[in-house]
């Protein structure tokens, strides 16, 4: 049974009614369109807090290297804390099988062509995973640099990945994902010699829309910069724990 289904709307959002000029009534509201998602997100936050767990929402275009970064990170973190992964894809369990290969509990969500994860789906994934106390949970969102950014999943932090092959102006072209993230991980830096990607320009674009954005450069393939990323993850988890 679902623990979170059937939650009511937040009680502070209410309606006032009066006669309209036409035949019917006008109901005046002041209600966030995503209020229901936010209720599920709050339930997810509570679920995590009750287990001393921490969740990181990972957003990027398809093919930016989320799963590969995850595989490498899990290998470095698996003796540190209990780990779990929520995988989001339109179809297939290919990514879940890659994570299983590292020996970490994983739950695959198939959105059946839905372009983003929402908090309700993630809540169900947590139930399937039965999170251990102190877990570090990575949520790999559906590969899409636009839609996932608008949906709170109840995560503790959002990370946006950008691979150097995508071009340095992505933060200017697709700003919402970068506005809502705490960290940008620039991936596939081993390919820098082969592409026209200016690290300075990319950082400038990103900071123009989010001045507080932390930026980490890494290559999952060579391992360069992985230490900085893993250190950030540990710092976040320790901060949440304290």
């Amino acid at each position, binding site marked *: 049974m679902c623990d979170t289904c059937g939650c009511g709307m937040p009680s502070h959002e209410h309606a006032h009614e009066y006669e309209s000029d036409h035949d019917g*009534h006008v109901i005046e509201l002041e209600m966030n369109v995503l209020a229901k998602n936010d209720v599920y997100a709050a339930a997810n936050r509570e679920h995590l807090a009750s287990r001393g767990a921490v969740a990181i929402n990972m957003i990027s275009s398809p093919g930016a290297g989320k799963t590969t970064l995850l595989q490498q990170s899990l290998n470095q973190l698996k003796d540190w804390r209990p780990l779990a992964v929520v995988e989001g894809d339109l179809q297939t369990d290919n990514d879940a099988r890659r994570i299983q290969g590292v020996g970490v509990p994983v739950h695959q969500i198939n959105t059946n062509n839905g372009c983003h994860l929402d908090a309700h789906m993630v809540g169900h994934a947590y139930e399937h995973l039965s999170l251990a106390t102190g877990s570090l949970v990575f949520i790999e969102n559906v590969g899409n640099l636009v839609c996932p950014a608008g949906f709170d999943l109840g995560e503790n932090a959002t990370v946006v990945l950008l691979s150097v092959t995508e071009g340095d102006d992505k933060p200017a072209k697709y700003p919402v994902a970068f506005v809502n993230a705490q960290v940008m991980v620039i991936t596939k830096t081993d390919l820098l010699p082969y592409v026209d990607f200016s690290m300075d320009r990319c950082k400038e674009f990103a900071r123009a829309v989010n001045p507080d954005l932390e930026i980490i450069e890494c290559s999952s393939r060579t391992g360069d910069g992985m230490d900085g990323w893993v250190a950030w993850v540990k710092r976040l988890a320790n901060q949440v724990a304290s």
Partner: protein
Amino acid sequence: MHELSIAQSLVEIACDQAEQAGAKRVTRVSVLVGLLSGVVPDSLSFCFPIVCQGTAAEGAELAIQVDPAKGTCPKCGVSVELNDFVLICPSCGAFPIEVRSGRDLKVTALEVEE
């Protein structure tokens, strides 16, 4: 196309609120879409009638009011209307503009019939 999910939430709210008010039909839904909310009004308008089909809001009109984003420059204090996410002050070049509005996505009113 996350506007499809947004439209679904919108219709769900409209139908729930109409039911709570004892109304049978929703004829008009008014929403405020902030310029920095990440929602494209045209896409929302496209999805809305499709999602309304078979619900109490079938045939309802969607009235979208775009909320322009406003901010204040922390250095020169000028009030700025933001057309995008770039937070550089057009008057003095200071950075970052403090955003005051434009991120909301709200249902503001419904018109319903008994």
